[in-house]
């Protein structure tokens, strides 16, 4: 059975809070693929950091990973290893991070700057 994945991204910039009329509005072309894995889960980042292992995806190159920091006050640092290089990215409160084409060699780590921060994670892999 073939699976199908679609990602749509839109952005609006306006001078009023109902976004109409928009000064600029962008709908990026949809991205589509036929992945084998689609993982969607919540995770609580701690100051010591947690690691989402995704054991079944080890060594596979991801299609896209999305990390949404659901905290309104606490910053989260996402960490991953790709091509043997450890990388990190700050994800501010309420923000999301989308990264393509990484190999989850040691899973995905999420560390809160203080206390704990709820995150929502989507991983799509071929």
């Amino acid at each position, binding site marked *: *059975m073939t*699976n199908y994945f679609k990602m749509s*991204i839109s952005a609006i910039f306006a001078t009023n809070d109902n976004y109409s009329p928009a000064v600029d509005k962008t709908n990026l072309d949809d991205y589509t693929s036929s992945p084998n894995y689609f993982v*969607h889960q919540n995770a609580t980042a701690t100051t010591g950091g947690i690691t989402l292992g995704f054991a079944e995806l080890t060594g596979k190159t991801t299609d896209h990973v999305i990390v949404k920091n659901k905290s309104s006050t606490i910053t989260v640092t996402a960490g991953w290893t790709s091509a043997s290089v450890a*990388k990190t990215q*700050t994800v501010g409160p309420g*923000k999301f991070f989308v990264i*393509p084409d990484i190999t989850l060699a040691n899973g995905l780590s999420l560390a809160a700057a203080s206390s704990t921060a709820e995150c929502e994670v989507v991983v799509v892999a071929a």
Partner: protein
Amino acid sequence: MTNYGKLSISCAFGTDSTFATVLQRVVFDDHLCTPTYFNHELLLASDAGTELAFAELPTITFQYCIIKNLGSYDVTANWWISAITSNNQVIGAGKNLVIPYAIIGTVLVRKIKLTAATGKTVLCEVFVVFS
């Protein structure tokens, strides 16, 4: 004058190409209040690397940078997390990179660089919001 921005990502996972049957659908929104700068343009990545700099802007916070690879070949994106350190990430054909980046930057970090493989050029769509 107050400006407003909104970024949305939706993704769907299903078993048919028309997505008439969706097994999972996830929507992420981020409402941005008072962004001061909004840039949206097409950028042709070359094998020597093509930079998009925002040196004309004052010291500000970089809220989001979205890079969409519109071409048929990989592109490597570099973004600076300090004056001397950059992150890099391959973006496959058709794929998206969304960087949420909050730093009060110096001139040196207010840029991105897109590099194509040797002998290739790749059209990318870039969207940046600063506050």
